[in-house]
């Protein structure tokens, strides 16, 4: 776990799988509204969009936005709603991944009651090894 989580409401922190709690992993479970905090991939190099890493948070169907933002590395990051807790599967809602470069925010908007799934942040960059730390905001 890194940093602190703010505005979490009903937030539970956990490792994605037992024994898989690494320094930068974060798993958040929301039952209501906003959750935000620093995030980082549970692993590197797996299930790549284009060779990058990904982070997964539960996405509740009352939420309207999912945001992913890098705050340290000026590379591209993406946000997409996936059906599976490992960030795999076809995009929920038929929506393409939203990717933003630099220090900007990749975001998707689902009008409530939206679909449920897993907010997945992807590091869409060959530069992922330099670090993929950022802020996730769910609404």
């Amino acid at each position: 776990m890194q940093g602190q989580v703010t505005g979490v409401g009903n937030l539970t922190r956990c490792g994605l799988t037992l024994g898989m709690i690494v320094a930068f992993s974060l798993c958040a479970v929301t039952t209501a509204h906003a959750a935000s905090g620093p995030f980082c991939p549970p692993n590197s190099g797996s299930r790549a969009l284009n060779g990058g890493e990904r982070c997964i948070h539960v996405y509740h169907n009352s939420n309207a936005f999912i945001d992913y933002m890098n705050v340290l590395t000026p590379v591209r990051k993406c946000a997409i709603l996936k059906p599976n807790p490992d960030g795999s599967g076809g995009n929920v809602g038929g929506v393409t991944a939203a990717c933003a470069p630099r220090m900007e925010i990749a975001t998707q908007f689902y009008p409530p009651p939206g679909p449920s799934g897993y907010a997945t942040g992807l590091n869409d960059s060959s530069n992922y090894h330099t670090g993929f730390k950022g802020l996730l905001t769910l609404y």
Partner: protein
Amino acid sequence: MLKKIHAVAGLVAVGAIGAAGVSLATADGGSQTVDRDALALAVLTEQKGTSAAALLPRGRAGFDADSARVASVASDGTRVIAVRRSDPRVPLGNGELVCVFALPKGPGAVPASGGCTAVDTFDENGVVAYLVEEGSRSEAVVGLVPDGVDAVTVTSESGAVDRVRVENNAFWRPRGTPVDEVSFDGPSGLVTIDAGR
């Protein structure tokens, strides 16, 4: 900013949150229907001498329908949506964000995908987002640029250069070769946005 979609009377906001659709009159006398709910839209009013970001009303934390505007409608029917959001949890620009969304064509055509940037950087650099199908080598790019920008140059990884017209501060390049950079002549000179890969 965002001048080309007018209210029938010139400045009457439509709002119509929660309606099945919102009809907007366009500058050429036609109309368009924008799908509903939280992306229901107030009609754009023509205001001169105001920055692009300032024209977008400030929304609540999260999303406020009143903060959304249709900036442009692409040739394929995709609507480009401008949204100003306020979220103090985002440590950029005191949480004030300007976002651009691409709203796909079709009935009930939400959700939308896009990107946001801090409001205090928007008027200089605009905001650009890429829409990517996982496993695909093609992508679309959508963006909002500052006032006075008539076109942007989209340079692809292949080296191809496309000149993309800006309408109401918005541009949209449909899916194509992955982008290397987007550039335009901004208020303070050339702005180049690297795709970030």
